[in-house]
């Protein structure tokens, strides 16, 4: 499947009409700004995610990634700009937009005292999926993430990597078409990180899910990925990694990032 170029897509209409995506872009963010009092966390952010594509949202700690996630998921109201998910404006049709969206937040959002299955059933209920169907789907997703034997275990007893996999499985339970992950690999060991990233990339190719992967880790991004570089609330560059690197005449994404943000290696927390 041809992936439309992100940078060109964002300039065009994002709805079903006149859009390069017949069903609307998976996620279209237009001119979104957000302030906490006097502090501006997001400043005129615009980008688009194609259906069935992997886009990395790259930024240092404090760049505004989590704020953007909170705005997209309606935890925070939109102060300025417009966001739509497959053509559904999240302000005008929040229900329709949210049911197409799966999200994994940076902090853990599982109920530690409930079992893996119970967490999934609770999530399913919140999406109006009846109990029988929910049990079926819970069984399926647990098997897919290799946690079928831990279905009855309390979440508290799972490892960090297992919890993350469970959170991803939960986010997919209502079969969304767009998945947002906010630094999903933070605090995990190398193997768990690689497993999760591999799993998410497979969701894109095998299930056609659009993914926005927020990270500050450069090694999670490959040259063929789309990337949106967010720094101090503003987008510095977006598009395919190889193109951005070529345009900046840099060696790799890391030096491109340093060049664009004016960060010296010593002051940044990013890992090359």
């Amino acid at each position, binding site marked *: 499947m041809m992936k439309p170029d992100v940078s060109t897509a964002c300039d065009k209409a994002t709805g079903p009409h006149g859009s390069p995506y017949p069903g609307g872009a998976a996620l279209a963010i237009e001119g979104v700004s957000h302030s906490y009092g006097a502090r501006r966390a997001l400043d005129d952010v615009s980008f688009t995610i194609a259906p069935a594509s992997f886009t990395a949202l790259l930024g240092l700690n404090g760049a505004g990634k989590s704020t953007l996630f909170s705005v997209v*998921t309606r935890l925070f109201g939109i102060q300025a700009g417009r966001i739509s998910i497959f053509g559904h404006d999240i302000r005008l049709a*929040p229900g329709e937009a949210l*049911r197409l969206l799966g999200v994994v937040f940076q902090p853990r959002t599982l109920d530690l005292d409930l079992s893996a299955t119970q967490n999934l059933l609770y999530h399913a209920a919140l999406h109006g999926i009846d109990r029988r169907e929910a049990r079926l789907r819970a069984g399926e997703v647990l098997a897919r993430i290799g946690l079928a034997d831990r279905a009855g275990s309390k979440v508290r007893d799972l490892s960090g990597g297992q919890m993350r996999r469970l959170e991803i499985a939960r986010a997919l339970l209502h079969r969304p078409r767009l998945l947002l992950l906010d630094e999903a690999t933070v605090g995990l060991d190398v193997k768990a990180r690689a497993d999760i990233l591999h799993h998410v990339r497979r969701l894109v190719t095998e299930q056609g899910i659009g993914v926005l992967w927020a990270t500050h880790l450069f090694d999670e991004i490959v040259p063929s990925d789309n990337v949106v570089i967010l720094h101090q609330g503003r987008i510095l560059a977006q598009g395919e990694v190889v193109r951005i690197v070529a345009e900046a005449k840099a060696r790799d994404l890391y030096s491109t990032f340093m060049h664009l943000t004016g960060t010296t290696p010593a002051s940044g927390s990013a890992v090359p």
Partner: protein
Amino acid sequence: MNSVIAKEQPAGFSFAQYLTCLNGIVWREGLRFVHQRERFISALVRPLVWLFIFAAGFRQVLGISIIPPYETYILYEVYITPGLMAMIQLFNGMQSSLSMVYDREMGNMRTLLVSPMPRWYLLFCKLLAGTAVSVLQVYAFLLIAWFWDIEPPPIGYLTVLPALVLSGLMLGALGMLISSSIRQLENFAGVMNFVIFPMFFASSALYPLWRVQEGSPMLYYVCLFNPFTHAVELIRFALYGQMNWTSLAVVSSCTAIFMFGAVFAYDPSRGFSRRGPAGGET
């Protein structure tokens, strides 16, 4: 595309889906309740301490004259029972709001708030779930109180149920409203001092209002305007198969106002967005 992706669903949700959501929220609240046995025990011990110790001590000090809904002279224990029932609900309401603050700090709250169901409905379900738990606690208390010779007419156990549901909703909605304005868990101690104690003591839970009026006319008016007083009176009358219309009106209106306030405060375009993201996030 793959079959895993959702087919185009009709817009909105069916009645069955709303019910599924309600069931899920009540079920989870029930599970949490079962898991937190200490919470149940402390919710039960608190009013029992008042009943067994405080009421026994004050029995001689406070004589209660015949006031509606009572038809005879009553013991002080009998008088304060409805107040203690309301106290259980007051604590439960504040406790569920405490858990909402905790959930928000820990991130669990997001699971609820990113549901595609309308947010007012999610909050209402949460409120109903909390109320159901508080009603169970009250009945457990009434059972133990029965062995302590607190014996309202048998029909009272049935007629008090709607009153308990309404007062539970009011106090739960108040807790929810308060939780929306609390930033951190630590601030919750203030709620104890500024909400629970004043509401409980400046009410008809421990002493009839005519007695308060004798002591301090000003306090009498404070008690009169305290919604908790009306929750207590609604329960008191209902427990004896009677209706206190004034209290019903006050409790219903307060429930509506607090609920509206909580929905307003949790609306993403208003109160909730003024805060920054949770600790550590950027």
